[in-house]
């Protein structure tokens, strides 16, 4: 049985319909009229134990809303969800013991307490045996390099420090599932790198199941074996990054260096750009194998070097977003 299972999840938000004009404030308050926004619209997926899944989509796609339903913060309007056999919104406290959550935008730590005190409280709330807690703390302090600010009140931490603290607080009690909602937003390159390494490590050594949302495709390239892409609350794609690239951007690019500038025309490839002895060719590997293309080039043109370009996930995603309604 999958660890996380969502079937036909729907979430509607209600907001009071804003009035305009005379006495707008009063009329907004008095009127019972509400407008409905469907943030998640029939999302289904199942995630096996140990998977590391990227949950992607443009702003307002419904990612955070889905995560809030998986964590038990929100009650679904329709559909079913179970996490480790528990229906989150029905049994919040049982669910809480199975999961760790980090929201990049908002800390879950105790604002007035030193970081180490926050972690200690979390350890106690999750009934960690003392020795186990100490072990994990030592390990996380090491992995996330938290020693310099362990005794600093959380309110005084920088964003990157706080995020590391939040990650530690979410994982110190060894939950089976970790939800990360934009954990790298606003962080510098080094901090991002450190967090990616931590998550990768956790996934491989502890077998933690991770669901990650992010707008940074480098996070995805570095971490995710599987992507779920949503837009307007509906799943567009569910599969590996490679298959996504293949289905949305089947064309690959070959950059050819020439000894002298000349016109290049090969069957099965299209010239994208040419000039100064460099030509970029686009081709579909399913129809024209790269090897055949390269040998044809070497046979007919003064080629000095060729290089095959990896398809950039960022470009693929950009293409998908741009093509949406």
């Amino acid at each position, binding site marked *: 049985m999958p660890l996380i299972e969502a079937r036909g999840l729907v979430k509607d938000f209600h907001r*009071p319909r804003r009035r305009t004009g005379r006495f707008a404030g009063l009329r907004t308050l008095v009127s019972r009229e509400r407008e409905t926004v469907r943030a998640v619209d029939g999302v289904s997926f199942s995630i096996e134990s140990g998977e590391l899944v990227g949950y992607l989509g443009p702003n307002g796609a419904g990612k955070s809303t889905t995560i*809030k339903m998986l964590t038990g913060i929100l009650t679904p309007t329709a559909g079913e969800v179970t996490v480790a056999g528990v229906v989150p919104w029905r049994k*919040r406290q049982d669910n809480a013991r199975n999961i760790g959550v980090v929201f990049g935008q*908002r800390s*879950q730590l105790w604002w007035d307490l030193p970081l180490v005190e*926050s972690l200690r*409280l979390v350890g*106690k*709330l999750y009934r960690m045996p003392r020795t186990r807690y100490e072990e994990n703390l030592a390990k996380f302090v090491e992995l996330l390099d938290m020693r310099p600010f362990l005794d600093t009140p959380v309110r005084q931490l920088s964003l990157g420090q706080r995020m590391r603290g939040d990650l530690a607080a979410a994982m110190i009690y060894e939950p089976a599932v970790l939800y990360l909602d934009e954990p790298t937003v606003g962080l510098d390159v080094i901090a991002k790198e450190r967090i990616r390494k931590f998550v990768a490590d956790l996934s491989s050594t502890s077998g933690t199941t991770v669901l990650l949302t992010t707008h940074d495709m480098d996070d995805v390239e570095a971490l995710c074996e599987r992507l779920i892409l949503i837009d307007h609350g509906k799943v567009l794609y569910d599969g590996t990054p490679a298959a996504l690239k293949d289905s949305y951007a089947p064309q690959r690019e070959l950059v050819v260096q020439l000894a002298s500038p000349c016109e290049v025309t090969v069957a099965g490839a299209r010239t994208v750009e040419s000039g100064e002895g460099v030509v970029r060719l686009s081709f579909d590997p399913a129809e024209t194998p790269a090897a055949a293309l390269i040998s044809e080039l070497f046979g007919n043109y003064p080629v000095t070097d060729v290089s095959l370009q990896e398809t950039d996930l960022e470009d693929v995603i950009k293409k998908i977003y741009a093509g949406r309604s």
Partner: protein
Amino acid sequence: MTGVRWQLRAALILLGGAVRGAVQYRADIVFTMIAGALYNGAGFATIWVVLDRFEVIAGWDIGDMALLYGMRLVAHGLWLVPFNQLDWFSDHVREGSFDRYLVRPASPLLQLLTTRIQFSPFGDLISGLVVLGAAMSAVDVDWGPLTVAYLVFALIGGALIEGGIQLALSSIAFRTLKADQVKLTVDSVFNLFGNYPARIFGTAGQLVLSVIPVVFVAYLPASVLLGRVDAAGLPAVVAWLSPLAGVVVATASYLVWRRMLLGYQSSGT
């Protein structure tokens, strides 16, 4: 793991954190306690000044009035000491910071209440105890085990009524995002009208105050203790059983809260 014993232990753990956080604001502690006490002192001073000239109000002399005032204020303090964090509740809902209480293994309400420690409610409680203590020696009541036990139950019952009503009103914020003004207004009604014998407000007034139900907090039990169960037009047995009203109100309110919690919408950011 979600039973009462665990909730109590979780409360202690969280309170430990709140205490450690509060030590930073030590200067504020004394001042807010004094402010709370003075506010209540002014309320009683009004009654005292009026009765200095007029002696009785609807048959209640200064000692009787002090008993009523003290009982109401202690009940008020008893609910406010643990429940004062409800004041910030609608902010948490509006800003979505209520999220964090829903992903930890303890009751969300309990986590909300143990977020921070506030000291002004202790001022209310202490000044209430002072007035009540003075009143107990002034009134013509035979304080035996039975009457004292009744008093204690009445105080707890009163606390449960005020707390229950405020909890139910707070939970409106899960839907509307705002409930502060309504809460404040109802709190004012309790603070103003709960300190006087309900008879002075006429038949309509008594009816309203019985429904809200202000009279059950202190007026009915105080009149039972003083041996004048003339009760706001209600049968005498209702007056006698008034401490039970708190249990009913608090239970109903908690169910309302649980129901409304399912409608929590978090926030977009």
